[in-house]
């Protein structure tokens, strides 16, 4: 056979036929042409949102803010806001009277309004909507009608006893349902008259039912898709106690200017269609001009920016961190003027908004087994003041939030009732004074430059802005070299929450958003011993608790404001909270500021709105 052997290297002249190459490039071009992103027609609005809605049933909780944006455009309420004004006016109701020292409200309803399924809006629909919310008792929702965390007796008569507001041993039997219904929280007095009986006087009742919590659903639509429970839960016709309504999670039928056309669970995209038979609102002047609104969930930040720059969308969420891709950095930071650097785009704001950033110090740090930790630095108010004085809120507002945050005197934002600019804080950025305080405190607490103590600052790895602040505080404290060696730890969201919720950590950074301009949720959370944030910082001031309950029931706004101011000053003096700032980038309903194409007209700011009110918008 010889060394060569018949099997050998084989290299024929083999070239892709010219025909093959031509046909491949032709088909590629065809696909590209078909895929041209048609610019949205004039009466259609396309919005790239950072986090889409998870479900749209108004009684459910609001883990994703986008849920309430949909609710706002599809459902309506007995009272709502006229344009930019912040005082509620009668909407679905003609008028209302307050009796029995603020514990009874009677509403006269408008007649002739139809739901999107054609059925009549009446008192029975109002009663059904509120009873349904109370009975379904979603833990994240408004089960005890309303504010979470209030002690008994709750608001709506019978609601607290039914839901025991997150207490143990929930009883969803038929007898518990009947007990609630007979308590008469909501009563139909006539076909277009409905009465609310409250367990205690409640100053914010009107402003609360003006939010998504007061949405009126069409009883016939809900009942048509409701199935009688087989697991022994009590029920009324159309609503099962203590259970979710799987149909209403992804469908909606209200009286609002827009109908929910499609809700795609996989993409979390929704499409709203204008309600042709919309009754026009109280003054009959609302006519939805945008025929179709498409909300597309786009996780990737850079893709949203690309869509905006390419003109493929009308509104895009841009994170505050990347805002300088859209507006000029120096003009904004130095002369606080918003000047877009992308053609044909506008950035609404800055507006006071319903998100605040703060740090908290836990006076009684615990070990994982619940026993108090040996080293309790934050029990000493000198240490609390020192830590408050090394957190440079001004620098953070400017460089971390890119200037889209304003100083606040308490855990409220200027957009909320009861905010008091004149309130005094007993700390300001002053590292020198902090050093003295820590040197003194070190003598009692046993730390000094030569035998230092280690301390951790934790933050949520999914929120880089918290990392920024944590690193700044750690760097400043370490810079003082007074014997406290700070270390920054990025934790997963679960570990981060578990550690501050079970009081394992001393110093931690947070943000929180409110869905209603009413101050109650934050007043109770920060000011009352049982409050959500106070509980985890072992903060309890009985005088503050008392003031909270008084303002809760004070019907006269001026008197209520004075009580709130007194309470806030009291809490500030205890120095458990470091108020960093309130967000001012207009980014409802997501954290990321919305950037609009200039062709989108009719936008106005109202802090009570949960995201855009599409009926007011149009495109040129």
């Amino acid at each position, binding site marked *: 056979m010889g060394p060569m052997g018949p099997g050998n290297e084989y290299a024929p002249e083999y070239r892709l036929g010219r025909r093959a190459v031509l046909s491949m490039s032709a088909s590629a071009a065809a696909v590209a042409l078909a895929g041209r992103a048609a610019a949205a027609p004039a009466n259609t609005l396309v919005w790239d949102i950072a986090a889409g809605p998870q479900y749209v049933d108004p009684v459910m909780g609001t883990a994703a803010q986008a849920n309430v944006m949909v609710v706002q455009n599809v459902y309506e309420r007995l009272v709502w806001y006229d344009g930019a004004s912040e005082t509620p006016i009668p909407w679905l109701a003609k008028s209302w009277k307050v009796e029995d020292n603020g514990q009874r409200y009677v509403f006269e309803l408008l007649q002739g309004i139809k739901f999107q399924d054609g059925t009549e809006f009446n008192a029975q629909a109002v009663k059904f909507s509120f009873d349904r919310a109370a009975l379904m008792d979603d833990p994240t929702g408004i089960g005890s009608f309303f504010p979470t965390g209030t002690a008994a007796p709750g608001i709506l008569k019978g609601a607290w006893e039914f839901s025991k507001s997150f207490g143990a041993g929930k009883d969803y039997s038929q007898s518990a349902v009947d007990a609630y219904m007979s308590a008469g929280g909501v009563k139909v007095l006539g076909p277009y008259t409905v009465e609310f009986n409250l367990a205690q006087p409640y100053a914010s009742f009107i402003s609360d039912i003006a939010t998504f919590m007061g949405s009126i659903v069409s009883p016939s639509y809900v009942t048509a898709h409701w199935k009688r429970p087989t697991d022994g839960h009590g029920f009324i016709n159309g609503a099962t106690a203590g259970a979710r309504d799987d149909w209403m999670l992804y469908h909606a039928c209200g009286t609002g200017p827009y109908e929910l056309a499609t809700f795609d669970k996989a993409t979390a995209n929704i499409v709203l269609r204008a309600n042709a038979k919309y009754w026009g609102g109280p003054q009959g002047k609302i006519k939805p001009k945008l025929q179709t609104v498409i909300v597309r969930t786009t996780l*990737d*930040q*850079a893709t949203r*920016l690309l869509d905006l*720059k390419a003109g493929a969308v009308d509104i895009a969420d841009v*994170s505050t*961190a*990347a805002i*300088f*891709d859209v507006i000029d950095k120096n003009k904004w930071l130095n002369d606080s003027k918003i000047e877009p650097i992308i053609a044909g785009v506008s950035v609404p704001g800055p507006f006071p908004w319903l998100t605040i950033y703060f740090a908290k110090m836990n006076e009684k740090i615990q070990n994982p087994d619940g026993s108090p930790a040996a080293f309790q630095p934050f029990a000493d108010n000198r240490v609390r003041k020192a830590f408050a004085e090394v957190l440079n809120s001004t*620098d*953070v507002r400017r*460089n*971390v939030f890119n200037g889209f945050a304003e100083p606040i005197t308490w855990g409220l934002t200027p957009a909320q009732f009861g905010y008091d600019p004149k309130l005094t804080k007993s700390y300001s950025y002053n590292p020198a004074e902090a050093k003295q305080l820590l040197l003194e405190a070190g003598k009692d607490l046993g730390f000094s430059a030569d035998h230092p103590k280690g301390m951790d600052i934790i933050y949520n*790895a*999914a929120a*880089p802005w918290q*990392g*920024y602040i944590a*690193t*700044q505080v*750690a*760097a400043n404290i370490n810079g003082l070299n007074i014997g406290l060696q700070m270390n*920054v*730890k*990025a*934790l*997963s969201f679960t*570990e981060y929450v578990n550690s501050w919720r079970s009081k394992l950590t001393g110093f931690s950074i947070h943000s929180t958003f409110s869905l209603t301009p009413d101050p109650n949720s934050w007043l109770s959370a920060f000011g009352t011993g049982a409050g959500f944030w106070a509980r985890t910082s072992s903060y309890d001031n009985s005088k503050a608790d008392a003031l909270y309950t008084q303002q809760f029931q004070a019907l006269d706004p001026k008197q209520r404001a004075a009580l709130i101011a007194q309470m806030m000053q009291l809490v500030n003096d205890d120095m458990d909270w470091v108020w960093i700032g309130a967000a001012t980038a207009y980014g409802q309903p997501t954290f990321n500021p919305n950037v609009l194409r200039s062709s989108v007209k009719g936008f106005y700011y109202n802090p009570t709105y949960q995201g855009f009110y599409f009926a007011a918008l149009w495109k040129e």
Partner: protein
Amino acid sequence: MTWMRRNKLAVAGLLIFAAILLMGAIAPYAISAAVVRNVQFANKLTAPDGAHWFGTDDYGRDLFSMVLLAANLDLRAALSVVAAAAAIGIVMGALAGFIDRLDEPLMRVTDIFLSIPSLVLAMAIASVLGRSIQNLSIALVIVSWPIYCRLMRGQVLTEKRKPYVRALTTLGVGHMRMIFRHIIPNTLAPVVARAPADVGLILITMAALSYIGFGPGPYVPEWGSLVAAGQAYIFQAPWLVIFPGAAIFLTSLSLNLVGDWARDAFDPRLRT
């Protein structure tokens, strides 16, 4: 040096990798670790200039030093992961191949791990263990050793049938000595040939894990988290994506070029 001329790609790859390895090695000495903690928000995301050759990152730190320090960390992590995975894989593969009793069980175990994509299993492990380079490395070793085990087993099965092995057994050489003294040295080459490309793959996987949220936090200079952070500022500060991204790209490209040559050089079928 006809070898050099014929394998231009592999040589280029080797040179680039050597340069990066060198920079990574000297980084901790040339640059103080304090840079990582030297946070100044005031001048974050400034453009490359005289003071900062690569500009600054989103914490206001000098990007050039971060990239160099990251080179040290990422390469050490990637190299140790592949080394550990290869070591485990080779030993297990040799045992599986040589001792018939162990073959079936070990192969089923590798099947289990091979039927879960490495990025997915690494994600699951890191999501439970939590974010840190150590956890990421553990996860990546767990997902990488089976490939080496499978490859090694194949080699050992063919090697076992060679006459010299039968001869040695008749001379009374025990299993362990046979495997470690004779079998492994002779079958190591094609298995190790995979290593360079796998180091490149690990770098890419670590970057992907950072992008989807497993970055190890601000105080750990790591290419993946730098690029992932930079992704949000693609128009405003493109250098934050370009430089660390280029570092990952160049390193994995060079490793893949060397890996491609190594795989062909040791692939028995391609011996021409």
